[in-house]
């Protein structure tokens, strides 16, 4: 499968800060690629270089087979982008905005069709400042599609949306993939990344520290499971001592949790100790590691600071 985006050894520094220290990744044609990383990891810099807003100090960037460093304008012709919050003039209407942005591109789609597709036909001729948050987000997506792009870049597409709009947007992104578009998105939401992305790259301190499908990443995470229990009386720390491969044991009154690579052996031993101590079980959970666990494990930081 040909690569839609190739980034090799991207480097960019601002004064003494190294925002990107040799970032490399590829995005395949037709996939949804998620770029994750804590704040300050170099996500914004990397993306700005890819979509032609910034010129890196070193490295190679090919987008749709075009050298983005040589022809940033040409790259912009072929990609569509939707920023976290798309701001337009207060009094511009969706139809006018689509006409205006369409005029920026060689190839552009019919505003009426876009309004239909993004359920904005009813709001086509009202001022931008009267649109709801969900409608604005749909207009932002419509604007990203105005040039029928090969690659779509979505920056935090669901941030600040209500659950309903969020579900609609997820469906829309899935549809983009079905239509053969390649999507690059950033998100804070691990569930979203897990649900939507074909592949994920995790960026930290200006470097890609992990790449793979969500499943690959979670299983690669040393097969860690999280066990959490709640019992009827205060837990004695001795009950949790020397459980098989238990790590990060925390006890808090009637509650306790730990990580283990051998969940069934650890749990059966723990249950027999509870029985001996005559403590009744209230709740027991055994969870596979989530993407978030992987992320924290890899970066040592929570996504939301």
């Amino acid at each position: 499968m040909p690569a839609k985006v190739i980034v090799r050894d991207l480097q960019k520094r601002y004064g003494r800060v190294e925002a990107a220290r040799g970032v490399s990744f590829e995005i395949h044609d037709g996939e949804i690629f998620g770029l994750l990383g804590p704040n300050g990891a170099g996500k914004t810099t990397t993306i700005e270089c890819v979509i032609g807003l910034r010129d890196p100090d070193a490295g190679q960037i090919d987008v749709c087979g075009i050298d983005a460093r040589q022809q940033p304008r040409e790259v912009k012709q072929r990609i569509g982008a939707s920023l976290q919050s798309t701001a337009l003039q207060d009094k511009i209407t969706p139809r006018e905005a689509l006409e205006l942005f369409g005029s920026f591109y060689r190839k552009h789609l019919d505003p009426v069709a876009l309004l239909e597709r993004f359920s904005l036909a009813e709001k086509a001729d009202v001022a931008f400042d009267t649109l709801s948050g969900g409608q604005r987000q749909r207009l932002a997506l419509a604007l990203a599609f105005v040039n029928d792009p090969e690659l779509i870049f979505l920056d935090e597409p669901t941030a600040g949306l209500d659950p309903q709009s969020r579900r609609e947007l997820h469906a829309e992104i899935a549809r983009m993939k079905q239509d053969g578009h390649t999507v690059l998105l950033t998100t804070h939401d691990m569930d979203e990344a897990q649900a939507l992305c074909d592949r994920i790259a995790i960026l930290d301190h200006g470097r890609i520290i992990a790449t793979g499908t969500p499943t690959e990443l979670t299983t690669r995470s040393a097969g860690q499971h999280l066990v959490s229990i709640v019992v009827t009386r205060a837990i004695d720390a001795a009950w949790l001592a020397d459980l098989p491969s238990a790590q990060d044991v925390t006890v808090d009154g009637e509650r306790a949790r730990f990580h283990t690579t051998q969940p069934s052996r650890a749990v059966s031993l723990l249950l027999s100790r509870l029985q001996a101590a005559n403590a009744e079980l209230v709740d027991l959970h055994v969870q596979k590691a989530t993407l978030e666990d992987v992320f924290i494990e890899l970066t040592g930081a929570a996504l939301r600071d």
Partner: protein
Amino acid sequence: MRALLQQLRTSLRLHFRNPMALIYGYAFPTIFLIAFWVLYRYDRVPLVRHMGELLTVTVLGGACFGLPTTLVSERERGVWRRIRLAPVSMLSVVGSTVAARYVLLILAALLQIVLAMLIGMPFPRHPIQLGIAFTAVAFAFLGLGMVIATLADNVPAVQALGQCIFLPMLIIGGVAVPLASLPDWAQHLSAFFPGRYAVEALQTAVNGNGLAASRFSLLALVTIGAASAIAGTRLFRWDAQQRFVGRGGKGWIAAALVAWVAVGVAAEAKGRIASILPAESPATSASTPSTPSTSPAPTASVEPSAPPSSRSAVPAAAPPTPQQPSTSTRAPSPPPEAGPTAPNDHASAPPATPHPPAGERSSPPLPLGMTGAMPGPPPVANAPATSPETPAPPKPAETASGHEPTSWQAVTMQNIDDKLVFDRLPPDNGVFTPIATSDQQPDQDVSADLDALAAALPDWTPGKVADPVQRVRNLLYVPSVVDIFQLPSEPYVPLLVFDQIEQQIPKEDLIKILYWIAVHPDQGDGSAVQALGPLGIPNGPSDLSEVRNRAGYYAVKLLGRITGKRPGK
């Protein structure tokens, strides 16, 4: 190109959806127009002399507030951040906004011109050159607006920065206040602001001799505009958080200011400080008559379109000295209105009586208001000592000297010498009862006014009443009203009226009558003040005291001229 046009169209559409922008863009120019109309309501042709100022205020407002507010608010709310994702250049984004603003300014200017023409202003004399001048003005000021937009982080900062440029330019930059009314230092300072060049370029196209007379102004505007455009481009920021990094940073502001300084220095070097426009009222500014010789005086260039006959009466009002052939576009034909007693005769007339010795003139000081709106009574020596509160005592004749004449026929030269103090009269080049000197030249419009007045004066009914005292009073009311209203013709009208009076009244009688009027300014019929229409002068104020007071002063001034006690200077 398509993108630019689409942006231009969108900018214009959005502008017309923004009520605040409409108020700023069109209501303000209209308000300024009405304000100027009210302010200069006694101009013979409404607003034609102030179109340059009005249009400049409009462009200045659009540049200092309109343009940067649009640019900064779009940048502030993140519109540019979104546009930047598309393959458009910064030049196209800013260019379309500037172009839209230019179109809006043209609309506002047309609105002003049409409104002014509805009031009675004639069509601009050089419409195409007016378009060129307007474009140069817009270029200079919109460049300025761009620099404001790049410097300001938010809209309130635009307001603050804009005011810093708008207000000084209006007041001491020669835009809202005529240069001639400014003190010398302010005139020099104004040479460093683009405002005055804008006014000059526009005004010469509206009612002057066209852009040929304002080449320096055009050049100054283009220089300032180009420097601002370069600085604005260099300082451009896609968002306000972006610092001024690299490529000289804020140093480019200095580059823009250097252009202002360069223009100012060039103006100083070329002696372009005094306005090239005709002075509003020459008598109000001491520096105006000293127009540098390098500056083309409005009358210096021969304009064939002006019929020579339109100036024929001017010599009667302000006799040009024969040593000034270079400024003479006047008709060779003799002035028909100038009678046998040409104004020059004032100076050559032998003194009727010898000057009183200096000692005899040691009269008590008189409360002569030189500049105030309520000057004291005419310089009658003894009368005001009684009651300074009343502007002119009703019967001053009864106050002091025992041998006061009881009728004007009984006035003697001795009375004049006793009572009148010629060396305390307000100066002829002041603002109170001004009289033009021989080297003062009325400009074209004023000449036309004077022609009309000279033609109408002999047939003016109040100027032909039987009683010679009343006749002289009526005639003296004419320059008095013109003076009160500060019409541009104010220094010239007295000369015309003096001529008329001298033609009608024998000198012996006139001396006595003038004395009588000076001592009794409040007597006689004042209805002539309300009958000035046929002379092309607005009727005087209903409160006659001001008019009578000035008529008294003019009487003494004329008396001084014909007796040689105070020759015209």
